[in-house]
């Protein structure tokens, strides 16, 4: 049995999850910082 697809698949799922949630969290954090700064400037 070729094991490579199973190994690649499990690493792929982990990397996609970590990169995805990392990017979403970063975008949310950056948006929150900008929004708070804009509201405080008013």
């Amino acid at each position, binding site marked *: *049995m070729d*094991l*490579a697809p*199973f*190994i690649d*698949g*499990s*690493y792929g*799922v*982990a*990397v996609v*999850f*970590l990169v995805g*949630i*990392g990017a979403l*969290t*970063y975008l*949310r*954090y950056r*948006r*929150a*910082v900008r*929004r*708070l700064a*804009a*509201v*405080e400037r*008013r």
Partner: protein
Amino acid sequence: MSEKLLTAMPAQRTGAWLHHFANPGRFLRLVQPALPWAAAFSIGLTVTGLVWGFCFAPADWEQGIASRIMYVHVPAAWVAMAGYAALAVCSLLSIVWRHPLADLAAEEIGPVGAGFTAVCLVSGSLWGKPMWGAYWVWDARLTSVLVLFFLYLGHIALIRAFDNPAHGHRAAAILALVGAVNLPIIVFSVQWWNTLHQGNTISFSGSSKIYITMLYPLLIASVGFYLSFLTLVSARMAAAIMERRARNLLVAAAERG
């Protein structure tokens, strides 16, 4: 000094200590400067652990290179369980002491923990197919981790299910505390029942049944996953605090004008 006052003092000190760290502004001041460093360390350690495990870790004598799935599966499983333990602690703090940050932490731990549990389940399934001949079997370890995933999903849904957010947080906290009984079931399932899933390989009290060249990348990937979880939850909590603060300022401005 009366006996009543003397017995009340330690409780007051405990409350003061808790409330000192329960301040969202103080949390923000502590976390914001640390976030870039925490992110850098979590990325560095996770990448090192995964690349080491994927490219350089030796193949197992019995499982061959399929054992390399371990460097994803085991850290994800550990973080999934530690995340739920943190969720239960936050729920306890929320119910007993009405800790303002505890509700916030519980709300942000849910999605991140569910994600790590999903990674654990998918990677375990992909490991099971070449080893057991099936992607899924209803054995005690797999089923209890699936229950953990559903508990996370239930918590995420329940916390947002009420018009009054306080009611949602309270109901979700009770679910998280009741669900904590699943954690020892996951840990000891391979000892209590005859499972297809292998027994515990790594022991923190006795000798581990893993060769040192496999243990190092596993530990590095695990520390990377733990740090990633901590960084993600802290960043999401900081973002939530800033979102609330901006909303409150807007409301206050609207009420004035």
